[in-house]
């Protein structure tokens, strides 16, 4: 059984039919990338999975649980964490406090301290800046903080929405290195990206979303070599 199974979901914003039957699967231990242009429905898919939006039709099953029955703040407790688009850290809180917010649902202080150490080891820059307020961090550091904050929830599945958005190329690479490391240490990742090249390079499998429907599905490598993907998303003729 796959870890996450999305079956034929239809999500609406009012009367706007945003997702027209999206289905995808994420197996435990994978990195799965969901690529697509503006307005294709990538973020909507993530928000539907995390129960922030309710699909009118279709199923979202995570580890055998029907996610549609849960309220958005409960989904975290089930093991799904989200790194939102545009970073969205708590700007007036320090780095440390942001990370503590990540561990909001957890009670075991010892485990939290261990995870904090782990996060600091993974992203040493955050340790240096742990007493600084989030708003004063650079864009790259904020993205690291948002990722670290999500990791502090101890997720089994990490949803990442456009982690490379608005970052310099050097930093994009650093972020993707971090993603791969997090995955190697045991967290499954579902990644939504406009930067298709990077997203497909790190992914085991990829889905291509266009105007609310999945139009293609293959391994990351295969999609990278696919002519129409190259033309539409990788800027190659």
């Amino acid at each position, binding site marked *: 059984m796959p870890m996450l199974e999305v079956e034929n979901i239809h999500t609406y914003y009012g009367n706007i039919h945003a997702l027209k039957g999206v289905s995808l699967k994420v197996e435990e231990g994978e990195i799965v990338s969901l690529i697509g242009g503006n307005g294709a429905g990538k973020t909507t898919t993530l928000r539907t999975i995390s129960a922030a939006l309710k699909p009118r039709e279709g199923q979202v099953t995570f580890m055998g649980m029907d996610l549609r029955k849960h309220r*958005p703040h409960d989904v975290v407790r089930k093991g799904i964490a989200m790194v939102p688009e545009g970073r969205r850290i708590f700007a007036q809180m320090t780095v440390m406090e942001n990370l503590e917010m990540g561990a909001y649902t957890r009670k075991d202080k010892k485990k939290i301290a261990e995870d904090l150490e782990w996060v600091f080891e993974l992203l040493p820059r955050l340790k240096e*800046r742990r007493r600084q307020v989030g708003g004063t961090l650079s864009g790259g550091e904020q993205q690291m903080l948002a990722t670290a904050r999500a990791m502090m*929830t101890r997720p089994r599945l990490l949803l990442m929405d456009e982690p490379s958005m608005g970052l310099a190329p050097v930093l994009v690479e650093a972020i993707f290195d971090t993603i791969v490391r997090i995955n190697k240490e045991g967290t499954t990742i579902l990644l939504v990206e406009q930067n298709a090249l990077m997203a497909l390079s790190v992914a085991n499998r990829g889905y291509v979303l266009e105007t609310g429907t999945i139009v293609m599905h293959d391994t990351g490598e295969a999609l990278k070599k696919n002519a129409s993907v190259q033309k539409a998303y990788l800027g190659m003729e």
Partner: protein
Amino acid sequence: MSTKDFDWKLVLRSGLLGGAIAILLSLIGIVTGFNETYIIYKVITFGELLVLGPILAFSFAALRRTSSSDSGVRFTTGALAGLTSGLVLLAFVGIGQVINLRAVFVNASPDLYAMLSYNQSLPIGMLLRLLVSGLVGLIVAGFTLLPTRLKQALGQGLIYVILIGLMGRLIGTVMTNWGFVSLLFEWMFASSGMSFLGAIVLFLLVGGLAYWRAGRPKVKPRLEPKKQQTVRWATLAGVGLVLIFLPNILGLWFSEILDNVGLFILMGLGLNIVVGFAGLLDLGYVAFYAIGAYTIGVLTSPELGFFNLTFWQAFPFALIVALIAGVLLGLPILKMRGDYLAIVTLGFGEIIRLLALSDWLKPWLGGTQGIQRIERPVIGLGNFTIELISQQQLYYLILAGIILVAFIAFRLRDSRLGRTWMALREDEDVAVAMGINHVATKLTAFAMGALFSGIGGTIFAAKIGSIYPSSFQFLVSINILSLIIVGGIGSIPGVFVGALALMGLPELLREFAEYRYLFYGAALVAMMLYKPEGLWPEARLKLELHEDEIPPPGDPVPSTEGS
């Protein structure tokens, strides 16, 4: 003096603006209105100060923009800016002689012209006015050439003389309570404003003190921790003592003001939780104040005769009712944000007021006649009981309420719940994604805010003894919100400062009669322009706005890469 350092345009602009503002103040009517109000008796009136003030301010502004330190340039700049202002006034009086400005401007009276020309015949008077204006500019220029330490001393001395001169009557009401001090008062003050000698003594005293303080080394020697602890306790004890004896020191009239300020602090602390901590803009906050007050009224008033409880018996009920009202208001608006929330809460506040006013609920709430003969709180045990009636007695009840509520607010801010409110304020979606139950969190914020406001309402009812729907106008909500913003949103000490500034200051400005709200409004606008973060901003906000000023503790590593 080199001509290229001299900025004609600057001088002209400053002079014209100074003159124009002096004319504006004249036409509003405050110049003639305060021509009998002396700052220093028989030397200068407040009206004259309002004419000279803008001239002084703008020649000062011109000099501050003049980079040249050449005394010739500076004196010319100051004098010419002042003279320009004087010419503007001259032109104004001249036009006033030819055209009857009074048809449009009621205050362009012969009195005003006489005052502007120092009660002399027009040519001599206006020449005098011109000379005085130029002289003001010259003096300002001389002032800017002084060493900083002396400048500070002179400036402070002057400001204190003006403020204390203006507040003379007010200070008098306090000082005459005290035998020997009243003698000092009589010597320092005249029938209006300060006496000449008093002013000079005060000026020298304040100026000398400022001069001496500026000369001391800036860095204070660090006390050892144990001593620091002692100093802290001593300060706390001192503040406590002052707070205990404040109503006796200040007398009845000031106690009334203190009580009002205190009630607003209570409500401000509550609204600060809703708006400051949780970021939910609530414009109907007066509703909970009304609910607290009316619950006490209904339960205690023998006039209505339902329950006839004592104040303290009714008190817990009032709190519970306010709390429930907070949750009830919270429920329908959980999904709303920002402006929408503000409108709905505004509606809620009006509904509560209109219900109290309605004929429908008149048998219970008294309609327009309100509720009279509300029970006063009685404290004490056995035979030693006191009924709290006078402002001075009620002060202690309010003080106790503030201490309790402020303590709770401080604890809440630093608690897990406080952190949760903050996360919700900053980004609701992300907060939910972190597993925060936004429904429960918002409702607790509303409930706590309502509770604190309810406490304020109960004391208000007990203080006045009778309540009417008209006491719970929308304006009260706006006042509380303004005091939070002026104090610094989200800041607990800010609530105190804001309440003192917004509720206390207008009372102190009573001297200025109908113009006090003019000054008050001007002060608010200036404040928002120059100190938008508030008088006592929250440390976090300051940290974010002025990150460069505070070195991060630990091991600061400068950012080497941007994004």
